[in-house]
């Protein structure tokens, strides 16, 4: 089966935030919760790089490991999803996540921070695919429709790649070999314990 991954080619990302609004548009994510965001490193200096970051759907996901109520599950495409029914909003996944992906509807949360919400790789949740319940709680389920996450599909410079890890590694390697430079597959060593040697 495919092993779905995200790869943000920081040498193409221009922080245009298309991935952010595409995710909001497709999954109707409310104000305040940003499943995906673009972080600009070394802002304003030569060598400035922008990286689009949401959940990397890690191998041996830290969030799944530390969750006290074990509400995470990994699909066979290696997409890490969770059940909002089982989540108690304790925040442990946020401490463990290297990428700050989990978000909560409440802030200053005194113990009732609400159910955790995170990037679902546009693959919905435990409810049956493309059902109204899944739609209401998790947003769209594009993978069930044979499509890819909308953030990657709509990325203006095709910096954000999503799909099977061999395919996107191939694309990235080919790009780097053609252009002669590359700042690496951001977050891969942390998330997938392996990276693309650029």
């Amino acid at each position, binding site marked *: 089966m495919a092993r779905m991954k995200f790869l943000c080619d920081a040498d193409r990302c221009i922080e245009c935030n298309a991935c952010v609004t595409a995710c909001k548009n497709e999954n109707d994510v409310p104000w305040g919760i940003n499943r995906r965001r673009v972080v600009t490193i070394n802002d304003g200096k030569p060598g400035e790089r922008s990286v689009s970051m949401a959940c990397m759907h890690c191998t041996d996901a830290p969030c799944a490991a530390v969750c006290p109520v074990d509400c995470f599950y990994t699909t066979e495409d290696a997409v890490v999803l969770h059940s909002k029914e089982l989540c108690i909003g304790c925040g442990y996944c946020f401490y463990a996540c290297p990428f700050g992906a989990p978000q909560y509807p409440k802030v200053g949360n005194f113990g009732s921070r609400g159910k955790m919400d995170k990037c679902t790789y546009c693959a919905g949740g435990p409810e049956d695919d493309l059902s109204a319940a899944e739609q209401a709680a998790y947003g769209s389920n594009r993978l069930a429709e044979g499509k890819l996450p909308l953030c990657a599909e709509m990325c203006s410079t095709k910096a954000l790649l999503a799909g099977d890890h061999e395919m996107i590694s191939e694309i990235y390697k080919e790009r780097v070999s053609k252009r002669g430079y590359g700042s690496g597959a*951001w977050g891969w060593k942390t998330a997938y314990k392996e990276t693309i040697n650029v």
Partner: protein
Amino acid sequence: MVAFQRSWGLAAALAIALVIVVSGDALAQSGQPTSVNPTASSVKEGQLLDALKPPGSGPSAVTGRVSIPDTKSSVLIQPAGRDWRQIRQETLPFYGAIAILGMLAALVIFYLIRGRIAIDGGPSGRTILRFASADRFAHWLTASTFILLALSGLNLTFGRKLLLPLIGPEAFTALSQAGKFVHNYGSFAFALGVVLMILLWLKDNIPSGADLAWFSKGGGLIGSDHPPAGRFNGGQKVIFWVVVIGGVALSITGYSLMFPFVFTDIAGLQEANMLHGLIAVGMVAVILAHIYIGSVGMEGAFDAMGKGEVDLNWAKQHHALWVEKTEMKGKGAATPAE
């Protein structure tokens, strides 16, 4: 909420990153980086992670700038999550189990060897006031909330392995959710209880020479003779200080977790969570011993907090100095036990 990144993480990251990336760019008057090739010097993740690591500690976070008010999302990668996970998955459960099971085992063994410590010469039928209602109220307020907090806390640590397989996910979620709710809001009661106890008993719990003697004789639990003790003997002082220091530490770390990003950033929260867990597990172990000695382990001990009136012989046996002092003041007139 300040819209722009303000945590020290950013400033440090950028300052250091600048060093390794750019050949000295003495910005001329018109801000003129001389020969600059932004692409060739494109910053790399590994470079940044290593460069930003304060010497001798875990890798620091890679932070940058975001345009949304949620400034904590400007942390792009914080590998420290790995260390926290290590402690959450291995260290805490391991030492927690050792401490708690170890203590339980020790208490059982002790009970089998020593059995229930009886009152010398049996109960005298006359009682003496040991703890006033305020003392008892403070004790039970702290004790009852501690039990609830301990149970809900341990549930978060061990529930998944022990309880979840038994009762199924939905029920376990309901239980854990209720537990977290009680844990978070009950914490105020516990904090209040600890404060009350400090106010009431601090003056009697200052360690003194008598305590050393008490310890050298194993507190009268081992061997036969019984070292004299004041209002609180050495063991009880230990318990007092464990509860006070532990309680305060748990409150501090607990409230920084309940008000995330108000006091510290992500690294601080992870630290607070680790400390909270380890201290809590230690306290649970100690309190188990306290519960044992205060109930099963020693005849007549429970009345101290149960009714507040203890048997005179018990008092003489365990707190001889306190009994003398009290009677000298003539205050504690002996009244027949109800």
